């Protein structure tokens, strides 16, 4: 094949180069056109549900029923937001979500970085076993663990150490304890990400620190962690966001507390029970959309702030292995 190409090249180098040049510019033009159409289309599909939420959250009851107002509200109004704000008890729910997600995010970040580093850089008997167990926790359906845990936390006797069990449900303890020990929701994935990242880091810095007499823990905190920020941003973002959107675990361990997802879920019910209810089912669509946006707004804000780190992290994290 190579010799064929060479023969062709020798035949008429100039004309071949010109025609090839024309062909490739034409092809790349066509391709960039197709690419633009595809990217715009996919972006539209992703944003579409968000747009529907925005427009219909500003609608009034008349707009919902009126089919001519399918896309844009005829008389934009904040009535949906006002109602959702009051019925969800928004400031309280926002505060609860914020504190819980921050607690979980920070604790999981700390524990998973420690474990990931230990697995990546130290040889000890059982290293690969521990890594295997971390991956194993991912394939077990969460309810299989969370339902026995529910009973353990309901009658918490410090694993047989105490005579009288105490009730840890409706406190942050179930979340704190599981996050502190890198056993929270999908923490196997976080451990994996951190381990891969540390594995991919060059050893020179670390060795220099050891030569200077720093112990493994000082080396970790003062040399390794500052370089691991891209991976840490991803891990924190994931654990924060998953806790923020979580309904099932919160519902299991924190039945009485109001986080945003729980308040959002209860929104239509509360509306029909409230005094100024019109008893019209359509109304719940305005409330649901306004409420969903109020739940998503802080996340979008966080994403907008963290996006530079996030995009950079994607290319710099060794999730790739």
């Amino acid at each position, binding site marked *: 094949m190579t010799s064929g190409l060479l023969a062709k090249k020798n035949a008429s180098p100039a004309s071949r180069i010109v025609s090839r040049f024309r062909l490739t510019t034409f092809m790349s033009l066509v391709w960039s056109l197709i*690419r633009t159409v*595809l*990217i715009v289309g*996919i*972006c539209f*599909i*992703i*944003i*579409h*549900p968000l747009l529907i939420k925005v427009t219909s959250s500003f609608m009034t009851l008349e707009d919902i029923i009126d089919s001519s107002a399918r896309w844009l509200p005829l008389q934009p109004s904040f009535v949906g937001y006002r109602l959702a704000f009051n019925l969800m008890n928004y400031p309280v729910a926002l505060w609860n979500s914020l504190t819980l997600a921050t607690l979980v995010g920070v604790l999981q970040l700390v*524990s998973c970085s*420690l*474990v990931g580093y*230990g*697995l990546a850089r*130290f*040889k*000890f*008997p059982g*290293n690969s076993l*521990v890594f295997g167990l*971390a991956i194993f*926790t991912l*394939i077990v*359906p*969460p*309810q*299989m*663990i969370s*339902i*026995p*845990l529910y*009973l353990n936390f309901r*009658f918490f006797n410090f*694993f047989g150490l105490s005579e009288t*069990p105490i009730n840890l449900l409706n406190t942050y303890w179930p979340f704190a304890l599981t996050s502190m*020990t890198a*056993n929270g929701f999908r923490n196997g994935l976080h*451990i994996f990400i951190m381990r891969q990242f540390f594995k991919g880091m060059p050893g020179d810095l670390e060795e220099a620190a050891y030569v200077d007499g720093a112990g*493994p*823990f000082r080396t970790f905190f003062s040399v390794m962690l500052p370089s691991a920020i891209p991976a840490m941003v991803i891990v924190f973002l994931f654990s924060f*966001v998953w806790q923020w*959107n979580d*309904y*099932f675990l919160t519902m299991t361990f924190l039945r009485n507390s109001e986080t945003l*997802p729980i308040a959002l*879920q209860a929104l239509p019910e509360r509306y029909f029970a409230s005094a100024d209810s019109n008893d019209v089912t*359509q109304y719940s669509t305005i409330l*649901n959309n306004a409420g969903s946006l109020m*739940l*998503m707004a802080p*996340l*979008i804000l966080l994403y907008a702030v963290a996006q530079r780190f*996030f995009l950079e992290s*994607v*290319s710099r994290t*060794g*999730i*790739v*292995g």
Partner: protein
Amino acid sequence: MIETKRFRLSLTSQRALAGIIFVLPFVIGFMLFFAYPFVQAIQFSLSDLKVTTTGYTLTYIGLENYRKALFVNPNYVRNLVGVFGKMLAEVPVIIGFSFFAAVLLSQEFKGRLLARLIFFLPVILGSGIVLRIEQWDLMHALLETGGTEGGGVFGGEVANFLMQFKLPESAVTYIVSTVEQIPRIIRSSGIQIVIFLAGLESIPSSFYEASEIEGASGWESFWMITFPMLTPLILTNVVYTIIDSFTAPDNTLVTMIQDGAFSNLGFGQSMAMTIMYFAVIAAVLAVVMRVLSKGVFYHD
């Protein structure tokens, strides 16, 4: 001589000790908050569990809970088959799409940053409660069906278009139902795109330069460099997608088990259901890893 040897030995064991201390939080947590409840789950599934004021009592009843789940409960087997079928249909499409999307996003074009931000948006927003709310929501139902019966954003038009070719009706239904799933597919591919993209950006550009000098076309270098270099990530992503699809909070079987545990099913039967479900997931993953790992190419 002996002195140095001893020193070395203690250094390695010091390092080993430090490593153990680093992973200790996980090991303790694994025992208390994973292994212990895991064993309890098996115990519960074989028992009749009654909650009392100071704790709970267990009465051993053998495989009764499993029998009930399989043969008495009208929904369990049906949901299990449904969830399994949905996973089989979805995984290849999600992998194909996220691979393609990552290749698109790795190229240079204007507005690439914005496009990436939007593509990753579902990672942030596409999970949990909002999806559940959307499923019941009236306005979404109205707009997504576009007024036609059973069509998605473009389902109706696609069906009309395909009908012109006089295709058999079952084929048209299959294609339309796939097309209807497009928004769902796109929105559950976020993390997979992130992983593929990270992989694409880690391929050294010298590989492409070398192949260009050798006279390879873009098409050839895609199949000779890009694809083989990404095969380990295809395996990672297939495994991730299967787990994601099986444990997603909007999965019908997961919802049924979770809600049922605290109401009609009771802890015992719901645990029996989860354990059988877990066995299915483990079997699927074992088969998939066995088949796919043969085709994986490792660079080093």
